[in-house]
């Protein structure tokens, strides 16, 4: 849409200034760190998320069951704490995997024009399929599991990264100093490593943050639809899916894990918005 030009090569990534100047980043980051801490240490302080106690089924939140219990009498506080693990693992692994794949493909596409035409057509096609549908289709054909959920979410997210990286590479290639480096006989690998790669970092980090948020939403949606991780795994999507039948008498079984999901996505989005405003002002103007 808008050509990326001028000040790119001079921009430097500085985390310290980024945080000081941008309260959104700090807020999002603090919230996220808190949630990560809960996901890591939380499970060692709570009981068994799968323990069934039919006597205590559908109890509302109270001092004994902070978040209430579900129709099998399982403690929802425990399950919600465990659920944060699935969300964060999926969010982070998808963000990292999609970034690595997208970065590699984007660099190659931006650099080798012959490859570009083919790969970008494929990316356009993949992007035409709404991500949840694409993930669903993949999952229909395999046995449920955490790994396949991650793969199913990575595939529709990769094109978003490829597009961003490619546009940065194309813009940098057009810079006079790169042209002169090529004319001066600098090797391609060195050029990519020294000049192109560092410039893609800022937009890549921003985009990866959004991919992370989107992955967590898709994972929960898949779980909710019954097409995510196996039902015995306590993920937020699964907890909500299992709460559907008794929603009218036990609304907490959906509203509380749902609130956690929304909060986590909000934290990651805020982090992304803050990083974008700080690192990539042009992108900020575009969206």
């Amino acid at each position, binding site marked *: 849409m808008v050509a990326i030009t001028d000040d790119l090569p001079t921009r430097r990534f500085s985390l310290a200034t980024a945080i000081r100047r941008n309260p959104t980043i700090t807020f999002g980051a603090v919230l996220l760190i808190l949630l990560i801490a809960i996901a890591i240490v939380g499970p060692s302080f709570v009981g068994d998320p799968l323990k069934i106690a039919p006597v205590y089924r559908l109890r509302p939140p109270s001092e004994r069951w902070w978040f209430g219990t579900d129709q099998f009498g399982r403690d929802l506080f425990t399950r919600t704490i465990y659920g944060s693990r699935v969300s964060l693992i999926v969010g982070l692994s998808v963000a990292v995997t999609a970034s690595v794949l997208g970065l590699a493909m984007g660099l190659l596409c931006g650099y080798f024009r012959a490859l570009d035409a083919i790969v970008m057509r494929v990316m356009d096609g993949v992007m035409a*399929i*709404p991500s*949840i549908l694409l993930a669903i289709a993949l999952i229909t054909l395999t046995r449920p599991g955490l790994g396949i959920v991650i793969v199913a979410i990575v595939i529709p997210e990769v094109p978003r990264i490829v597009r961003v990286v490619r546009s940065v590479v194309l813009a940098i290639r057009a810079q006079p100093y790169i042209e002169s480096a090529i004319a001066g006989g600098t090797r391609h690998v060195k050029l990519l490593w020294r000049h192109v790669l560092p410039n893609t970092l800022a937009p890549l980090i921003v985009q990866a943050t959004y991919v992370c948020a989107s992955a967590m939403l898709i994972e929960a949606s898949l779980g909710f639809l019954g097409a995510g991780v196996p039902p015995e795994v306590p993920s937020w999507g699964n907890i909500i899916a299992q709460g559907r039948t008794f929603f009218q008498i036990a609304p907490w079984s959906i509203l509380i894990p749902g609130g956690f999901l929304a909060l986590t996505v909000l934290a990651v989005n805020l982090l992304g918005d803050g990083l974008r405003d700080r690192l990539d002002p042009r992108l900020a103007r575009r969206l």
Partner: protein
Amino acid sequence: MTSYIVRRLFAVVPVMVVVALFVFFLLRFAPGDPAAIIAGDDATSEAIAAVRAKLGLDRPVVEQFAVWVWGLAHGDLGVSIFSNLAVTRLIAQRLEPTLALTLSTLIVTIALAIPIGVVAAWKARKLVDRLAMGFAVLGFAMPVFVLAYVLIYFFAVRWQLLPVQGYSPVAEGLWPFAQSLILPSVALGVTYMALIARITRASMLEVLQQDYIRTANAKGLATDRVLLLHALKNAAVPIVTVIGIGIALLISGVVITETVFNIPGLGRLTVDAVLKRDYPIVQGLILVFAAVKVVINLLIDISYAFLDPRIRY
């Protein structure tokens, strides 16, 4: 102009070809034996063979592909494994609720989001702007199904103003029809609305800095004319682009919203097909949804030519 439209039309072809190839080869190259997975865990080897035969997986890939493309070219999306009904027929049966839901959401959302964005940009950094953008950030993080249940909890369960779930066809009266769509539309539309309101604000803010807006003000034009004609028309291209991008959100959202509210539309059909692993239906729906998305984006590309006279055809 015509040549621009024709060129855009031709650009659609490779995209749809990739989509078609993708769903075709997904089934063929999936790890493990898709026929066994589709048939279920305790299926006999005869049952698996039957599924394989039904999907045509026992024939050479080239032949399968030819048969499939031939079918597509004739508007044949295949046959459901379980009900033996044509996928096109199943889709046609479920079309009305989904169309009603998405169109009402689309219209209401755009009609609200653009004015919100315009006002936010006009009153930038004032209270209205901060409230609107706070709402947009929250709305963007809110999962559709969580919002749906929050709405059901308050409006249907506690205050009993609207039905908890279900769909009432237009044929059975306009008011029940509208009532059954209110909560699903809100749940479906909020994320989309947040997206459009944000881009409208950002795009308007950039335009309001431009020299020609100063010229318009120097002519003493009324504020509404400056905002709605001079500024909004210039801000339109990014807004319309995002409306197109958001169609994907809407389609994903439909699948979830119809599940929450138990609306017998295409989304519900998708989920049922997934749970039964009825791959031909899933495959047909992906093609249809992708085609809808591609066509809408085509229309949007064409609209650029009307919105911005500088775009060369």
